[in-house]
């Protein structure tokens, strides 16, 4: 009997037990008061930034074969630093009674992606993902493949309220920002293809996860001034007028997804993975328990696919893993 045997006593929970528990928790969510659900609706990190900064500052623009829409897809990543105090402000605005949904008028789920589901192998995930799931051939010492999860395709549509956007800008003292007309009542459609999550872990608490999917698509009504909206989104994130304008104008929207990165807890740099431009972000934050934790995330694209590799490994280890993904 040794240390190894003690570690190997661990077992994954029965998948049926895991699924049933997740479903039970989902039902608990459904019973929560509407007010509480509203509070958390957009509270995941970028709160209100989600729509102005994320949707508008996001991805690559390319004219669709369809005549009246423009499709946004991810081809490369770039970081845009923002001050977390702005996030706190947006969060408080989102929770205020007058700013439910922050700048959204409506939000509708067209296709519910459902919960993440355990699958026995990456091979088993491939048919559900619609592509041959890639995996790293190199794993840092001690790390082993742990489990694979798939989340199904999803789709939603949302509309922006000009009045709400103006109110938010006013509350942020962004009085010089003009809201373009023609936003009201127009739908933004978001399609998320299936996503595959591969988890890796070591007995010594090292963790990594590779996320891969085809690029999501965001369709916006034709005629929208994306550059102008991106500039507004960057101002909402806290960038000053000049910087927001410079980034909005210099960014190649046909190929770039801007990733908001908190400037006081992160470092980031552009890297190359498989000859493609990638973004390596390292964060260090102190949790409510007082413990400081570091995390690293690497994002890159290959063809139609986007990859995100993240964990509590060094940037060097993550890069080596990423280079071995095939």
């Amino acid at each position, binding site marked *: *009997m*040794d*240390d190894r*045997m*003690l*570690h190997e*006593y*661990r*077992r*994954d*929970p*029965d998948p049926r037990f*895991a699924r049933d*528990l*997740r479903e*039970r*928790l989902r039902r*608990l*969510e459904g019973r*929560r008061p509407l007010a509480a659900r509203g*509070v*958390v609706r957009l509270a*995941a*990190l*970028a709160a209100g930034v*989600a729509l102005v900064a*994320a*949707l508008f500052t996001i991805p690559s623009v390319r004219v669709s074969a369809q005549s009246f829409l423009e499709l946004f897809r991810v081809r490369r990543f770039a970081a845009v630093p923002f001050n977390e105090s702005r996030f706190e402000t947006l969060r408080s605005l989102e929770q205020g009674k007058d700013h439910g949904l922050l700048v959204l008028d409506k939000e509708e789920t067209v296709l519910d992606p459902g*919960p993440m589901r355990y699958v026995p192998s990456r091979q088993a995930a491939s048919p559900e993902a619609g592509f041959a799931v890639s995996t790293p051939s190199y794993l840092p010492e001690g790390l082993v493949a742990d*489990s694979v*999860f798939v*989340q199904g395709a999803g789709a*939603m549509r949302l509309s922006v309220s000009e009045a709400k956007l103006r109110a938010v800008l006013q509350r942020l003292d962004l009085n010089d920002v003009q809201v373009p007309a023609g936003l009201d009542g127009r739908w933004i459609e*978001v399609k*998320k293809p299936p*996503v595959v999550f591969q*988890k890796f872990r070591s007995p010594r*608490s090292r*963790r*990594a996860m590779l*996320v891969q999917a085809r690029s*999501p698509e*965001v369709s916006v009504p034709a005629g929208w001034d994306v550059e102008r909206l991106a500039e507004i989104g960057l101002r909402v994130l806290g960038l000053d007028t000049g910087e927001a304008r410079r980034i909005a104008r210099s960014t190649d929207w046909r190929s770039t*997804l801007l*990733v908001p*990165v908190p400037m006081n807890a992160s470092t980031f740099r552009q890297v190359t993975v498989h000859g493609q431009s990638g973004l390596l972000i390292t*964060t*260090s*934050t102190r*949790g*409510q*328990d007082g*413990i400081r*934790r570091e*995390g*690293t995330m690497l*994002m890159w694209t290959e063809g139609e696919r986007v990859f*995100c590799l*993240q964990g*509590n490994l060094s940037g060097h280890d993550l890069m080596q893993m990423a280079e071995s993904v095939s």
Partner: protein
Amino acid sequence: MANGDATVARLWLWAQRARSTEWDLVFSEQLPRVYNFFRYRVGPGAVAEDLTSLTFEKAWVARERYDRDRAGFGTWIFAVARNVAIDHFRSARPTVSLEEAAELPGGPTPEEIAGKRSDEARLASLLARRPDRERELLALKYGAEYTNRDIARMTGLSESNVGTILHRAVQALRADWDEGA
């Protein structure tokens, strides 16, 4: 990882309901840890699953408090899990399962037991004999895979004390194992 999880949300945020995905990730990350904490704490089987469910149900309803600190949620859910375990042992009747009964004096000899049981069952049986504090620390260390430092913060013990208790516990388990207990 938890902090990384938060960052992942930034990537997918614009494409779907990030909150839902992010909490799915937290769930899939924490479920094996909580389940294994109870597996080491109370043994394998339905009880470990029941206590895992109870822990998640208690913790999940208030999880929005941790929207920006998934790591904090991980620590918190283990505070809930430890309390659930304490309540379980307080309310448990002093009964002996059939499996445990086989370990009582007058049962099969150690050789017979060893011949019939898998190593896993033997280990479960030996874990069940450890004092409560040792077993909790073993569950946090090997089940939940926390470091000694994390365990020290969670339990209020010093890191060196945690290391000492765990060392003694493993030594005792090894001795019991070698004796064929």
